[in-house]
């Protein structure tokens, strides 16, 4: 074991301690509620891992501050001629942090690694049929069908050095036991790993040999996971950390009212919605309906949608920070259907008459499942919604639980109605259509999160076209049709876009990206 003194300040006594915070302006400390599980960019497809590693590793393309795609390790890309797919022209003169040169071989190797069965990110490469190295700085990704979205879909596909991985026995992502890449990194990105103590502290330092233009002024960045929200807030307010993501809604006022701190608010790309057990032939949790499922009647689903008062939820639970949602992606995401941007109006009378029309003038009761630790205020939201449903006669029996237990229950169809939040991984409407609206089909890898089994032949028919169509207008027409169908059928009740709330010291400038990724290279400490 090495002898190491991490930090031993010889300060004692209260007065002197107060000056510590402003001592070195460029060492930056931040916290979040989850530690990245691994330093391997292909092992776990989760936001904490991908967000963190985007500071160290780079992809062929990357997302800009406004989420648009720009070149990273690829300088440009164009569709292949004569076959479907994309050609990427790679940046020259880039080297990995250990000094090895970056070439097309590394991309080829990383593709093989990331699409292997041991990789959690392999679904990104489902459309790919072949990858060919053309020369040192050109590589072709051949796809099974035209795929205009492919470059967007691999923004988090990070490139490892072939030589480094092979030398250290990290040819494949660690699935069972750890390997070298679990704790060590060798990226091309703006930062390098100085030390890592999983779950305790991870320190990054700038990569002196980075090819890009340096916009930050950080000399050292220290990340600490802080699971307890109150502790995280105290750490910020006491000046021990410079930035934390996220903070709870109820703490916003406390941060804003203090000198020297600020709250960064935005909209995440995540839409919160209610889903129905479309394919259930009877309600599972009802005491007064048996042998049938009222939610199979579109009028009942419409009634449920009209019963929800988003304005009140916004005012009471979210302090005016949410935006009502009309479809499964928020405005601004590619494919968003402007033509269908109205959400069902709050109209309890209409809801009641729809219920009566459908044969339930006195209403009925059913089971509503919600997570209690997944989305902001998820449990409170479901309580509020349950009382709104009850006001029109639909009595929701609410049961909530932690998310580790929630997904298995949804997979086992143990619900009549359920809460779900969805952030489109590709930042395109195609993503929720593929995962939430397509008829579940495990062979074609469709509808894997369509727990209720919503199925519409026309939607299924339109999806391949949406995936392949290169002409934006023709594509949007198809997306619009899908959104119109699913709105008319109330496949889901989209509720609102989840707010994104970060807090920082006043003297720190940063960019809050809508995918909740935090990029150190946009941070300046003044």
């Amino acid at each position, binding site marked *: 074991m090495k002898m190491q*003194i991490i930090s031993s300040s010889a300060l004692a006594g209260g007065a002197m301690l107060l000056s510590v915070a402003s001592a070195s302006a460029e060492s930056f400390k931040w916290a979040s509620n989850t530690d990245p599980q691994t330093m391997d960019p292909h092992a776990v497809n989760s936001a904490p891992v991908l967000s963190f590693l985007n500071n160290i590793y780079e992809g062929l393309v990357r997302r800009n501050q406004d989420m648009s795609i720009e070149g990273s390790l690829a300088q440009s890309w164009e569709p292949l001629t004569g076959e479907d797919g994309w050609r990427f022209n790679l940046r020259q003169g880039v080297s990995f942090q250990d000094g090895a040169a970056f070439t097309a071989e590394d991309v080829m190797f990383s593709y093989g690694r990331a699409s292997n069965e041991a990789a959690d990110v392999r679904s990104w490469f489902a459309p790919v049929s072949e990858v060919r190295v053309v020369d040192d700085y050109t590589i072709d990704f051949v796809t099974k069908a035209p795929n205009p979205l492919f470059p967007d879909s691999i923004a988090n596909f990070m490139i490892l050095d072939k030589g480094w991985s092979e030398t250290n026995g990290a040819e494949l992502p660690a699935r*069972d036991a750890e390997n070298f890449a679990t*704790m060590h990194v060798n990226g091309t990105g703006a930062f390098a790993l100085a030390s890592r103590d999983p*779950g305790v502290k991870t320190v990054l330092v700038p990569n002196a040999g980075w090819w890009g233009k340096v916009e930050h002024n950080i000399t050292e960045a220290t990340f600490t996971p802080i699971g*307890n929200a109150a502790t995280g807030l105290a750490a910020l307010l006491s000046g021990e950390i410079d930035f934390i993501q996220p903070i709870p809604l109820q703490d916003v006022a406390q941060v804003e009212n203090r000198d020297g701190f600020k709250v960064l608010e935005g909209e995440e790309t995540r839409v919160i919605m209610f889903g129905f057990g479309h394919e259930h032939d009877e309600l599972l949790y009802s005491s007064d309906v048996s042998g049938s499922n009222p939610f199979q009647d579109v009028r009942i689903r419409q009634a449920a949608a009209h019963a929800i008062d988003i304005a009140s939820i916004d005012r009471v639970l979210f302090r005016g920070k949410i935006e009502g949602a009309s479809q499964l992606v928020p405005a601004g995401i590619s494919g968003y259907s402007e033509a269908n941007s109205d959400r069902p109006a709050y109209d309890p009378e209409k809801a009641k008459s729809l219920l009566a029309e459908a044969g339930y003038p006195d209403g009925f009761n059913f089971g509503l499942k919600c997570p209690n630790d997944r989305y902001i205020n998820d449990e409170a939201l479901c309580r509020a919604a349950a009382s709104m449903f009850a006001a029109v006669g639909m009595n929701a029996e609410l049961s909530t639980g932690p998310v580790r237990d929630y*997904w298995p229950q949804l997979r086992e169809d143990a619900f009549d109605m359920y809460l779900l939040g969805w952030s489109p991984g590709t930042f395109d409407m195609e993503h929720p259509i593929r*995962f939430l609206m397509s008829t579940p089909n495990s062979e074609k890898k469709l509808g894997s999160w369509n727990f209720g089994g919503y199925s519409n032949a026309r939607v299924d028919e339109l999806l391949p076209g949406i995936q392949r169509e290169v002409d934006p207008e023709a594509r949007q027409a198809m997306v619009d049709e899908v959104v119109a169908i699913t709105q008319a059928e109330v496949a889901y009740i989209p509720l609102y876009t989840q707010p994104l709330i970060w807090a920082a010291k006043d003297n720190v400038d940063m960019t809050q990206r809508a995918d909740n990724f935090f990029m150190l290279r946009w941070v300046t400490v003044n």
Partner: protein
Amino acid sequence: MAYFILKRLIQSVFVMIAVAFLAFSLFRFVGDPITQMTGVETSIEDQERLRENLGLNDPFVMQFARFTGDMLQGDFGYSYRTRQPVGEMISSRVPATLELGVVALIISLLVGIPAGVFTALRPRGFATQTILMTTLVGVSIPTFVIGIMLIFLFGVQLGWLPTFGRGGTIQIGGWNSSLFTIDGWRALLLPAITLGVYQLTLTMRLVRAEMMEVLRSDYIRFGMARGVPMRSLYFKHALANTMVPVITIIGLQFGGVIAFSIVTESVFQWPGMGLLFLESIRFVDIPVMGVYLVVIAFFFVLVNLIVDILFAAIDPRLRVMDTA
């Protein structure tokens, strides 16, 4: 004595197996590890393959047998969450928890015993009533509230002490210690007080009750009549006899201090075993949870053993009984 210790250690193996069995039978209610290990885009087939590889489809008895078998061979398995070896993960967190627990215990004894003696000697004084009232409040407030209150007062408002983490640590061999830097002690103070408050109250009340009992006994009165100095009577004769039951209870409680440091560790983001256990629950990291519970069980057995040995050292009568 050696036979006695050996017997207890053999018993401890059975205790640990029983704990592991109970833990394993509860794990399936904790949730599904696979959904916590994979991203949303991971296909159902890939999830199923992972489940098969990890042996999660095997019957409960088989999973338990594999876990116990591996443990007995010294193989603690790999964490589902981080893929690191569980043995390493837990042992790297032991120093933080032990140092916190021991310092909390020392604080509680250093304050609790004198306070207990004081309140026993002046049972009806104003100071005694104040102390009793304050500690009652201290023990009625949940640990995490005490922790948060201390953080906001000393960390945020006054800015004297850090609000989270261990501060400066030094590696000594495999032991990561925060006892050798001022930074480390500053970070240790608030969590140790938070963890020690309950122990402190308990120690104080126990010492007080025992002391008052002893002070009424004949040999103390006889000593007084003979003119033995009061100081010697109180601190030599009375306190020594008071300590026998106190040590038992405090010792047994120490196992609890280690086990229940979870709450304190979470509030102070103290990187000990308890915090690791909490994170593991969130991710349904079954190997880590299993090993943690077994380690804690072992700890309880060990503490009990030490208490028994101490007991024999303090009270000669027990030594006679043991050889019988």
